[in-house]
């Protein structure tokens, strides 16, 4: 489980649902912002430059690991850098395709995914940042001509299908519209390090309640992919 600040709520959610997945063991690797891009493929593993801040963060968040060794895991999930914004439903399919392609393939999560793919054929999943938890008034203003969420994600899936990268969709029950998350999931979200909460106006980071729903959905996908592979 690799990611930036957005992996925080997934970690918190996992702490709450771990008992429902007794056969699953998750290892987290996290560092804020886009810093994970610095990870390098070296000797069949993904490693942070020695002595870097990233190295410290990886060590700290993974419980003592200094690199990601693909042979040690059955599947990979990466989140961070891929943002989905509101799009007008009347946008042409050519623009949609290009938009979906550029936003996913240019994101940090995809950078890491492709680096891992260069070392293994095990299942790799990427997730986009949670849709913003926009106030109801804003949602109502733009809802009429909003592009369906699934259309955007389907295009993104096509963009990374060549690398056999799978896309995790944000669970429907967490969404308030085609482009937003229910506000309740942004209340009390915590920072990646420490136990401090994000400010009240924070709309992009979600709480453990969201993390619980997301992680449960994600693990079902992962389990299915891993079982298909082992058959």
């Amino acid at each position, binding site marked *: 489980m690799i990611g930036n600040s957005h992996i925080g709520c997934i970690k918190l959610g996992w702490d709450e649902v771990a008992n429902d997945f007794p056969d699953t063991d998750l290892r987290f690797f996290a560092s804020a912002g886009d810093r994970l891009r610095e990870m390098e493929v070296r000797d069949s593993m993904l490693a942070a430059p020695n002595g870097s801040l990233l190295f410290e963060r990886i060590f700290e968040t993974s419980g003592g690991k200094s690199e990601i060794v693909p042979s040690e895991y059955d599947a990979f999930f990466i989140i961070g850098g891929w943002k989905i914004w509101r799009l007008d439903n009347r*946008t042409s399919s050519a623009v949609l395709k290009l938009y979906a392609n550029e936003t996913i393939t240019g994101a940090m999560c995809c950078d890491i995914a492709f680096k891992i793919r260069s070392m293994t054929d095990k299942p790799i999943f990427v997730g986009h940042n949670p849709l913003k938890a926009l106030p109801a008034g804003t949602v109502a203003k733009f809802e009429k001509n909003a592009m369906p969420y699934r259309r955007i994600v389907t295009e993104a899936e096509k963009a990374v299908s060549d690398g056999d990268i799978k896309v995790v969709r944000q669970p429907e029950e967490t969404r308030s519209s085609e482009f937003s998350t229910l506000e309740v999931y942004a209340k009390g979200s915590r920072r990646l390090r420490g136990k401090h909460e994000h400010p009240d106006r924070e709309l992009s980071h979600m709480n453990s309640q969201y993390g619980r729903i997301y992680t449960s959905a994600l693990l079902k996908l992962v389990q299915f992919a891993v079982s298909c592979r082992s058959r």
Partner: protein
Amino acid sequence: MNPYQQLNEDAFWATAVARRDMLDISHLWEPKFRITPKTRIATFGSCFAQHISKALRRHEFRWLNSEPAPKGFSNRSARQYNYGVFTCRTGNIYTTSLLLQWVNWALGVDTPPEECWQKDGRFYDPFRPAIEPNGFASREEVVDSRAMCIEAFHSAITDARLFVFTLGLTESWIHRNHGYEYPMCPGTVSGDFDKDLHIFKNQDYATILQNLKNAVELMRRHNPSLRFLLTVSPVPLTATMSGKHVLVATTQSKSNLRAVAGYLAENKRYVDYFPSYEIISSVPYRGVFYEENLRSVAQAGVDHVMANFFDGLSKRSDYRDVKEVNERTRRKERQHARKNKKKRTSSEEDVICDEELLEAFGAKR
């Protein structure tokens, strides 16, 4: 004693022009009304208007973008798909009648025609034939995308405080039965030319003036605080259907456009004229601001035009805020213009000009 003796040196050719270095010819424009970095500005018109959009953004003026590219879209793709070229994705609006057509659609006076062109399984908007590089996937997409643009054009009219319009052409192509106008002759960028359906019209002074007056008045009715800044594109015609030599046809077209812009600016308190046309194409500049093809305007020319624009703004005594914003950038623009004076450099970014495609599709060259 005669009245000329009371005039300052700007009124005399010798002192204002002939005895000066071309780059030192100054005071070409005194803005009629206040334009500050906070003024919401919409820009439309022919190819040359794109330079004004770019310069306004570079100088941190509040340039309106009522149909922005999707967030996360790269600059390269945005440009390829004509986002951020004009205030919304109308493509080039070359004639005053085309401007009126867009205004009528945006304000509900008229509805856009259903016509749609098809080629190799792709669909094209006759009113924005090159807006997407490979056309649209379906007729519905054409209609939807145009509807979005019309909505954005409506926002531009209602949200802007200044509407900059560059008059480009007088030659136009009209649908014989329905009377609507195409920005490009059908069969050039896309579509098929039908000699029974598509008729050529070289608009005269009275027509150009009437259409521009109507467009301005309609917009003012919906936004009484809207003001207009007119410019005339110094870019000559790529080709003419008038039957005249293209040089003669260009002079006639530009003269009519210049006269209309001047007339409106002199007769309406909310209309001003900025002399970009003169700065690029008049005799004292000896054509140095044109590229090798003697048609496209080189970056040095654009920089010089915009330096004059911001100079003009900053000379008004109530424009302190403009001065602050522009002091540094004006200097840069001038330096840049001097440096490139004899280089005839290409524009930093190619200007999107559908009309140039005429050259590619012309039969005899």
